[in-house]
Each structure stands twice: as structure tokens, then as C-alpha cells.
């Protein structure tokens, strides 16, 4: 993609009301987001104890600029809601152990399901790999099954909630390691 195309894409985004835009063609991915897209991330970062809120906000936003989690509603497949994910508290930047550790949070309030049906295998297991665009879980709200997909390749380190739990907005669901 040449500079001219890049600039025209950027101008198109600036003129629109969209909070984020993703352009992908011929192996090039161009993704921009307004600060509104980070509202959930910022709020989550502020909750982190230690360090001024301002620093937390910028760290959260910086990390999520590259990739995110997509919430795909199964009954309306084109609905995509970006979810919050933040570096693991206390581990980020602390050397080999913390590298790539991310907390994936719930983008809505609803019932957490690890599998598509009670007798189906879970989407994600501790120690197993979850590829980009693969389902991590389902969150049900008012009989709408919303699939949460990972937007990057990762290994699930911990599952922080139980199957069938009511999960709140912004609640930590998975601890994963980017690969």
C-alpha cells in the first residue's frame, strides 16, 4: 500500500463516526481506533492498583492497539464488538515469565459458557493453543449467544470463571500467553 492510499484511508476514517476501522488486503493490515474504542480498556486499567491512573490508561491503550478480541454474535454474525484485554497485573514487563501475558475480559454482562452445548467439548482448555479467530467461549445475554473470539494466537494459562457463571462487564475471563 502506498502513502497516498494510506492517507486517503486515514482521512476517510477521520470524517466518519466510526470508533475503529480495519483494512486488510494483499497481506497488508491497516487498523486505526479512536480513543472511544478504548473506553473499556481505560476503565480496566484504572482499576489496577499501583501507579497513577494516567499511566495505566496509556499502557492499556498501547497494548490493545495491535490486536483485540472480537465478540461475534451467532444470531447476527456481522456484529463485532471489541473487548478489553490488559497485560497481567504484576507480571507485565517483569521478565520472561510475564512476557505476552494478557487478561481477556468480558465485553458484556451475561452467562459464561465454555462450550457450544452441555455435551460439546470446551472451546478452550488450560495449556491448549487458541488460534486467531478461534472461539474462546460463549456469553449469553437474553438468549443471544455471543461468541468471544481471540484475535491473536495464544495459549490459555488460566480460566478465571466457571461454566454457567454470571460474568460482569469487564470481568477477567482468561489469562492467556501470546504466541
Amino acid at each position, binding site marked *: 500500500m502506498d502513502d497516498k492510499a494510506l492517507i486517503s484511508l486515514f482521512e476517510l476514517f477521520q470524517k466518519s463516526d466510526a470508533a475503529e476501522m480495519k483494512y486488510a488486503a494483499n497481506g497488508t493490515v491497516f487498523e486505526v481506533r479512536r480513543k472511544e474504542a478504548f*473506553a473499556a480498556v481505560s476503565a480496566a486499567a484504572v482499576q489496577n492498583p499501583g501507579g497513577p491512573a494516567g499511566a495505566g490508561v496509556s499502557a492499556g491503550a498501547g497494548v490493545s492497539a495491535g490486536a483485540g478480541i472480537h465478540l461475534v454474535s451467532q444470531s447476527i454474525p456481522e456484529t463485532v464488538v471489541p473487548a478489553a484485554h490488559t497485560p497481567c497485573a504484576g507480571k507485565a514487563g517483569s521478565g520472561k515469565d510475564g512476557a505476552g501475558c494478557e487478561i481477556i475480559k468480558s465485553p*458484556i454482562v451475561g452467562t459464561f459458557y465454555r462450550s457450544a452445548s452441555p455435551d460439546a467439548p470446551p472451546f478452550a482448555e488450560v495449556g491448549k493453543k487458541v488460534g486467531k479467530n478461534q472461539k474462546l467461549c460463549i456469553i449469553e445475554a437474553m438468549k443471544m449467544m455471543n461468541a468471544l473470539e481471540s484475535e491473536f494466537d495464544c495459549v490459555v494459562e488460566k480460566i478465571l470463571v466457571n461454566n454457567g457463571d454470571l460474568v460482569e462487564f*469487564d470481568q477477567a475471563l482468561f489469562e492467556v500467553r501470546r504466541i
Partner: protein
Amino acid sequence: MINRLLVANRGEIAVRIIRTCRELGIDTVAVYSTADKDSLHVRLADQAVCIGPPKSAQSYLSIPALITTAVRTGCEAVHPGVGFLSENSAFAREVRKAGLVWIGPDPDVIDMLGDKVVARDTALKYGLPVTPGSPGPVSSREEAMAVVRACGYPVIIKAASGGGGKGMRIVWKDEDLEENLKIASREAEANFADGTVFIEKYLQDPRHVELQVIADGKGGVAIMGERDCSVQKNHQKLIEESPSPGVTPGMRQRMSEGAKNLFGSLKYRGAGTIEFLVAGDEFFFMEVNARIQVEHPVSEFVTGTDLIREQILVCCGEPMSIDPDKVALNGWSIEARINALSPGKVTRLDVPGGPGVRFDSFLVAGSSVSPHYDSMVGKLIVWDSDRPKALARLLRALGELKIEGVPVNIETQRKILSDATFRSGQFGTGLYARLEASL
């Protein structure tokens, strides 16, 4: 009776509802956005669930988030509070569809009262006067003259599709009628692509008076006195009092009879307010608010009731504890709304006290006032045996109220309450605009 209730709101009204529920032995589930994580309603409720980001559309206005939370936390009822989804019939229907009790009137009644034309016709049917005027569009001088002869000058010509003052002309005498009719129609055509106009009696500086109603859904209607809400800045109420200095016992009786007929015939359930414009000793129906209102505490003071309790009881099918025939108004109550002038964090909060003083607020020291929500941060309400004493008490209490870190309108409220016209009780909705320069 129910055991657990979801409070689908935030701020002081959420706190208010939680307080009554605790006294009734009902567990409460609070909902909050990430901006309200440390808010008082979250701390006071038995359980709190984060339902979304700061933007109301994704949190306090999200029907799926609210219904999911109510069902999953085992709630049996939903109280919508004021604002947000409180008059949203679609939400009321979803609440019922989920098998929960809606603390408000029937969704069909909400819809009916929300349609201005239907509401006006219904009010007329039950003997409540509406602002006199033309029954339909007016296009000729002859038609206009007929309306004027019926209701008298001054009259206001309004665009049927209008709003915002465009296409509106006030006429005081015959000579100006025809010309203004043409101008108004041309303005209406230019602004709204519809030259249709109608004529109404023009009320000069009317009072805003409303009746508090509690109804049991079976035709039983208790009228809990009136409130005068004439002190308004751009239609936003600032000071409310009960009783109204401009309502005579005769007017009160006529208003109440009409309201009883209207609410009774609708089999209205819960708390509601019927609003009137008052000019001299005449009153005209404006609209019905099918919910509890911000200014309900002044009615609680003069009637000695807990309106939220009565609202919950009747909506849960329990009898109200008020005898509709024995509602007595005692003394005088005034409320001053405390509004934040900009967002911020409260660094100091001194709450006034003493006899007859009540401060309803979600503020505590350290609270944040978020830019995402309404600017009202509290309500200071007082009661005393008469208006002069209540005014003295409110000024005394306002003097004790100290809020630092967030600029608020305490000084403006003190000036209005000290104004000679306000103190005389002889004023209408134009008072604030006339005082504004000196505030």
C-alpha cells in the same frame, strides 16, 4: 411480596430506592457502569453488577444487560427510577416477558400517555381542561377570529410541525391577527415544509403545578397534594415546593377530581405525576409522567409518606398503606436541586442536619462526578410548618452544605430563595429568566 429487586438506575435515585427496599426487607441488586464503580449505590446495595462502560447507551440504557443481570441474580422485580428507561414501554415489556415485576404502570398505559394528542383527548374526556384553542388547523382570518372570540387575547399561533419557537407568533389584538397568521404560516412553511398553523390561548408567565398520584391498578387513586415547580432554567426544574403558593383549595379540589377520574379509569398502577400550567385561577392539563419524579420528597414531607414504598407495594399487588380519602397536607416543604457546574472529585462534603432537613445524594467525600451523566448531584429538602419558616430553614441548611472539589450551584439557589419575588410566592416559569442577570 418480593424478596429481591434490581435497581436499574444510578446516582441519588438508586440510593433512594435501596434505602426503602432495606426497610421493606427486600434485597437489592445495583447495576453500574465502570465510571460508577465507587458510587454510593454500589456500596449500599446487597449486590452490585458491572453492566457496561461509562456511555449510558451501553450500560444504564442496555436492556439486554439489565434483564440478564436481573434474571441471573434472582431478582423478582425491576425498579427503573427516573430518567433512563423509566418511561420506556419496550423495557417494561421485556421485564414482564422475563417473568419479573415492573415497578411502574402497564406498558400500554405508558404508550398511551406518551402520545401527546391521545393524552390530551383523554384528559378532556375526564373533565380536565386543556389549553383552549383551535381544534384543528387555522388558515383564514375568519377561522382565527372564531378561536379568539372563544378564548380571548393574547393568543399564540403555532406551527403544527414546529418546535424551538419557529413559526410562533403572539398576538394581542384584532388588527395584528391576519398579518401574523400569514407570517407564522410562511415561517412554518420555510422551516418545516408545512405551513399548517393552529391557535392557542397564550398563557403569560404561567406556574408549573403538578399533582403526585399513587394508584393501585384497581381504580384506587390517592392524590398526594401538588408541587409547584415554576423555578426552571430552560425547562429544567431548580426549586420545587409543596403546597403551591398559587393553588387555592378550590383549584386543588378540581384538579384532584379530574386526576382521580383519569388515573382511575386507566386502572393506573404505581406512582405518577400529572402536570398543569396554571394562570390565575385557571389550570390546563399538560402531560402525565408515568414514573416517580426527582422532586417526590417534598410530597413525602407534607403527606408523611414514603412514596417509593407505596409505589413498590402497589406494583407488587399489595394494597397501598394510604387511605385515598384521608390524605392531609401538613406544613410546607421546599427542595433545592444541587447541580454540579462541571465534573470533578469531591474533596470535602459537609451535610446539613437538624430538624426537618433531608439531603438525598450519591455523594460522599472522595466521590467522582462523572461527565457522562446528569449534572444533579443532590437534593436538599426541608420541611417546616409554613412557607416563611421553611424558606428560613432551607437557607440555613444551604449555608451548612459544603461541597469542595466540584463546583455546585449553592450560591445561585441562595440568591433565588432570597429574591423578593420568589419570597412573595407570586411568580411563574419566567422567574429564573428575569433573575438570571443578577445571579
